[in-house]
């Protein structure tokens, strides 16, 4: 029991140190990465991820159809 406890303690310490070391390494890697990428990529990312083209076209088609129909309907009702 005593021995198990001390083993658990060692694992706890080793584990926490390793987690921190690892994530600090990642932090350093990210800093290097950002420096490496430099200024060439500083423009803000487009706010929305581009929708797939097909979907886009479909939506456009629907929109155009809706507009056309709306205007058409309106005219018919107001002539």
């Amino acid at each position, binding site marked *: 029991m005593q021995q198990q*406890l001390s083993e*658990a303690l060692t694992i706890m310490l080793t*584990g926490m140190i390793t987690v921190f070391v*690892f*994530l600090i390494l*990642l*932090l350093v890697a*990210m800093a290097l990465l950002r420096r490496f*990428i430099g200024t060439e990529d500083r423009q803000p990312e487009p706010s929305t991820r581009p929708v797939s083209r097909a979907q886009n076209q479909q939506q456009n088609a629907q929109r155009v159809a809706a507009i056309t129909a709306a205007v058409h309907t309106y005219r018919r009702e107001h002539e």
Partner: protein
Amino acid sequence: MDRLITLWNSTALSAFTWGEATMMLVGALLLYLAIKKKFEPLLLLPIGFGAILANIPMAGFTEPGGLLYYIYAVGIDTGVFPLIIFMGVGAMTDFGPLLANPRTLLLGAAAQFGIFATLFGAIALNGLPGFNFSMQDAGAIAIIGGADGPTAIFLASKLSPDLLGAIAVAAYSYMALVPIIQPPIMRLLTSKAERSIKMEQLRQVGRREKILFPLAVLFLTLLFLPAATPLVGMFCLGNLMREAGVVERLSKTAQNELINIVTIFLGLAVGSKLSAGEFLSLQTLGILALGAVAFSIGTASGVLMAKLMAKFSKTPINPLIGAAGVSAVPMAARVVNKVGLEANQSNFLLMHAMGPNVAGVLGSAVAAGILLALVG
């Protein structure tokens, strides 16, 4: 008449044991929590249903030839299902907030103290009569503190398959209870002034940075923690598919149909491990208690780490965001936001908390790798 007797003997009424009946009630309770209380329903509904099916006497769901037996053998024994889910989670994760404020990685690290302290606690519990957790058991139980479902299932299936059911149930239940467990701890450890601190707006993160990040994570993992590469690797693959921008259809499928299909079967298979022999024991109570402790310690460590960082930081840091380091994405970040708003009605911390939140996912995958390497 003989036929009627055959049929009657083939009913479950005679064969039922108290253990099975109780486990069915446990399954029904999980269904209730999932449907009525909306506790992580995507997992707890199939888990609860699986628990009911697995405990039907004479139906043989978990015996060779039974449905749950096959699902468990194909998906959990091999570790494939949690890894596929982790890939899907990777494809759903936006590392932007973390990349905009990389220091929050430290918060994701600190919150893992919940895991390792619980490992110690599980072994300490062996001092009480009725508990006898091996180091493997302790590691599997501790991962509940990681607040990450697929990681917990993956690790438990490797270290201590017998406890898988109880561990998965505890992990998902506590993840659902995050809005109840965390706020008191957060309030206890911070002053109202601290909770009111506003943080600076996050910078925009470039596309290239987002593509290179999962690769950098993978690179460091394979160098220093090969045991963590299955989890971290699949997570990074999902994230790379998301950010690469050239495999949109694969990324969409990983985030939707594939993860949905696997979730159904994963839940059923986990539920099939909820058998009376393994679940109805004092150990399960211990696991539930340890899980609650793990969450609390993780939350506290995150908050304290954030307070420490705030001391050395030029820009203001609200210590609440440390609580999001336990992962439980995105629930923990939402809790941070809510507690922040209570203190200051114009203080929106959600995006700031997303950084430590996704860092917590990485952190617990890394911790799982460490546990695999040390006690696996």
